[in-house]
């Protein structure tokens, strides 16, 4: 078996196991299961980004998150998105800064689809946790990643960086 085949099969097994666990937790606990996977994702985000550079610009910070994911072999490819009619990627909101993100290759979506588990569940919340943890280390602010649309081939999410709150201690 080639190295890629073996990595792929390990990832598939791990993700399917997580998918089944998350589906079971959702059934047993309901909504609180989302907090559990959020915290697991946040811990991972904080851990992976512990040595990351502190960056102020939101788009640069996302670039940093992207390279952290890549370095840690996480299949979570995403890109910033703006509509043709919009001038800027980053918008100011009451809470801080907002940017829309498109997630294409996502190991969570792909493992959910393997067994027909629904999207937008607790495992998807793990991604919110991961971003939250990583962006805390990189920007010093808390953030929220909302699922605007979960599609078959891509998901559309809104990331808010809470710049209007006090920065978190370094």
């Amino acid at each position, binding site marked *: 078996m080639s190295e890629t*085949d073996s990595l792929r099969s390990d990832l598939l097994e791990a993700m399917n196991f997580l998918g089944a666990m998350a589906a079971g937790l959702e059934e047993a606990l309901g909504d609180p299961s989302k907090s559990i996977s959020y915290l697991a994702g946040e811990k991972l985000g904080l851990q992976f980004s512990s040595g990351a550079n502190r960056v102020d610009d939101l788009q640069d910070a996302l670039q940093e998150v992207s390279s952290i994911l890549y370095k840690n072999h996480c299949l979570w490819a995403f890109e910033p*998105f703006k*509509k043709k*009619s919009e001038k800027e990627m980053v918008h100011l909101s009451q809470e801080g800064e907002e940017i829309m993100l*498109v997630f294409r*290759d996502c190991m969570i979506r792909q493992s959910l689809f393997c067994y027909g588990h629904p999207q937008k569940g607790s495992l998807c919340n793990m991604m919110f946790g991961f971003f939250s943890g990583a962006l805390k280390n990189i920007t010093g602010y808390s953030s929220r990643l909302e699922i605007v*649309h979960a*599609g078959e081939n891509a998901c*559309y999410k809104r990331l808010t960086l809470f710049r209007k709150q006090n920065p978190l201690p370094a």
Partner: protein
Amino acid sequence: MVHVEINESGCRGCRMCVDICPTEVFEFDEPARKARVRESEDCIGCLSCSYLCPSKSITHSDFPVVKNFYRDLQFCRKKEAFL
């Protein structure tokens, strides 16, 4: 860049594509009772519209296709050559 097209003669006017699209790629032509592409460039290639369209009248081109997981490793290996 993703390109979206609606086969006008197939459209039943159900509006499902208009309602599901997260980036408002479609608009509804009331007099004609048909959906139209408003801004193809805004499409993120989620494919929800073509999945839902009851007439399978929506087609996309130039969109990134995700690399799916396969249970069968032999099949997975064959697919690997094209990734």
